[in-house]
């Protein structure tokens, strides 16, 4: 799969490199492993196999089996071991194959990683990074395709990241490892093959702020992760119809950057939240609620949500596509907010 859009807003400079999301992620790991002896990668098939999605390919050869550590299929034990190692001064990066498997380690993530600092009265920070794949779009059916990052964003004590661009894939890991508290990184499975130019001058990502990927004036498309390319495509479509859509990439799902979201909606007065999670109790629900709480008097239309259908993700291609947020649906929702059910010829009054 090739991305239709280059998600990074920065135009390609002369020294920029062609790369993929997967390679950018690997480069970030390599940099971290070189920079700090305390960093090690642990997970199922991260070593000899090269990572379930090929992210860690070649790292075993460079860093050896102690630091590129293949773990048995024991999510709870190796995630918990990562937490214990973090308590003892290490900087583990734990890889879980998919978010669905992370449920087997939920006890450790919630009851230990997110909780120890508080429960111990501030004595035990847990500087662990847990990476996992999320999302659908590859016909992997109902046990490998879900988007549960919204669940994790519910939990105080965790920082939840969703790199959606090459730059973020390359430059989110270092600040995540510098965070004294647990950080979860959700890598959308459909992004690994996205290729593009990686700006040479990009530095560590500011994890506290969302990014406006495309400025606009009529409606804010608020999204993250695997839905970002779809939202950008929708913004192109809308522009053809004379509607100027602003695209906000949340990047950090917890804590949410209320200021960036709010500023955007205060400018456009309309919001469409695009979230691959199920609609009920979703991150999109949280953002909609915050807009209602904080920006009620800025809204000129009801907030729209484009989420996954409330069904376990099906296998068949047509069904899977129908279950997920798609560009057309985002365009339609945006049009509803500006009061134009059909493609319009001019700008709204």
């Amino acid at each position: 799969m090739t991305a239709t859009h280059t998600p990074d807003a920065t135009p390609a400079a002369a020294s920029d490199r062609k790369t993929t999301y997967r390679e950018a992620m690997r480069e970030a790991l390599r940099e971290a492993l070189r920079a700090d002896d305390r960093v090690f990668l642990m997970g199922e098939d991260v070593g000899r196999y090269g990572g379930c999605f090929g992210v860690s390919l070649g790292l075993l050869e460079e860093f050896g089996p102690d630091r590129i550590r293949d773990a048995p299929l024991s999510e709870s034990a190796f995630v918990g071991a990562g937490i214990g190692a973090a308590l003892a001064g290490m900087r583990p990066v734990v890889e879980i194959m998919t978010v669905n498997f992370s449920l087997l380690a939920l006890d450790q993530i919630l009851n230990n990683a997110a909780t120890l600092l508080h429960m111990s009265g501030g004595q035990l920070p847990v500087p662990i990074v847990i990476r996992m794949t999320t999302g659908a779009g590859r016909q992997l059916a109902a046990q490998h395709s879900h988007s549960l990052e919204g669940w994790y964003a519910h939990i105080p004590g965790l920082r939840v990241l969703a790199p959606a661009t090459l730059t973020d894939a390359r430059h989110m890991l270092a600040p995540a490892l510098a965070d004294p508290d647990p950080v979860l990184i959700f890598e959308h499975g459909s992004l690994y093959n996205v290729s593009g130019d990686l700006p040479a001058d990009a530095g560590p990502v500011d994890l506290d702020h969302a990014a406006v990927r495309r400025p606009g004036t009529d409606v804010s498309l608020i999204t993250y992760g695997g839905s970002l390319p779809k939202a950008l495509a929708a913004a192109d479509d809308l522009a053809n119809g004379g509607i100027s859509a602003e695209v906000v990439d949340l990047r950090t799902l917890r804590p949410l950057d209320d200021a960036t979201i709010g500023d955007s909606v205060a400018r456009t007065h309309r919001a469409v939240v695009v979230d691959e999670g199920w609609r009920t109790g979703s991150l999109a629900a949280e953002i909609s609620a915050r807009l209602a709480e904080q920006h009620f008097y800025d809204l000129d239309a009801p907030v729209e949500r484009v989420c996954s259908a409330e069904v376990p993700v099906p296998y068949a291609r047509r069904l899977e596509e129908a279950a997920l947020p798609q560009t057309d649906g985002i365009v339609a929702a945006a049009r509803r907010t500006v009061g134009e059910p059909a493609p319009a010829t001019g700008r709204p009054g």
Partner: protein
Amino acid sequence: MSTTRTRPNRQAAHRLALLESMLRVRRFEERCVELYSAARIRGFMHLYIGEEAVAVGVNEALTDDDAVVSTYREHGHALARGVPAEAIMAEMFGKATGCSHGRGGSMHLFDAERRFYGGNAIVAGGLPLAAGLALADRMTGRARITCCFFGDGAFAEGEFHETANLAALWQLPVLLVCENNLYAMGTALVRHQAQTDLALRAAGYGMASWAVDGMDVLAVEDAARRAAEGVRAGNGPHFLEMRTYRFRAHSMYDSDRYRDKAEIERWKERDPVEGLARRLREAKELSDKARGALEDRLAAEIDRAVAAAESAPEEPVEDLLKYVTSPVEASPP
């Protein structure tokens, strides 16, 4: 597997110290019962009374550099580890001076300085953590070990088996101490395990393991020393099944409908504290007068802890959200 024999000629002073340590746990918890009954302590509180020999005996095999991971029945482990009684009592009162600043209560005692990693109230939840602490030591070449306490109930949890396998596979320096008190809350071992020989099952993971009379502090100490030496020598995880018994209810009070009164009385005859005291008295190592003085000293110590906890300040409500994430400026070492 074998039950260990005690060494003769152990120093009398050492035995007295063991008695004092066990008696501190016993008297401390007896006071906790009173305070709980008077609603000064609230929440869930799990008492260790009857199992004191395990915490005290195992602690003898640990150094200050070693780490301890414990369960929600951890007053004994914390006291044996040297966490001050004041800090524990204050924590149970929910005060600012508590060892977890009132965020944890009875089930979540922590002391980073003493490498006491809690206080885990998810059965078997502390095991992966212990493996990780040990992994870090192994990766950095530090010569210290991690001791993890858990109950027989943990054998029914996947986390125990995942961790036992991981620890043995990676030869982690971890000492696994199972406090088999025969009941997972109200469910008897025979009602929750198909194979009740726990040491045998641990041995199945390829780690040295044996069963110990958990009511005899000297036997516990011997076994723990042997096992800890093995762990320190780089022979991977060791497993000890401590056969012990809790004299009181699972959590403060229950109706004990799941076990016979006669059974409890039989185990009380093997009271680890009074058992050692009797041996010391018979060996003329402990006079009635010395015993009385010891009791008075401990009572005074606990009185001080209670008084300090009573008068300690409450955590301010403005600090409610403190310790959810680390302060921005601070970064752990």
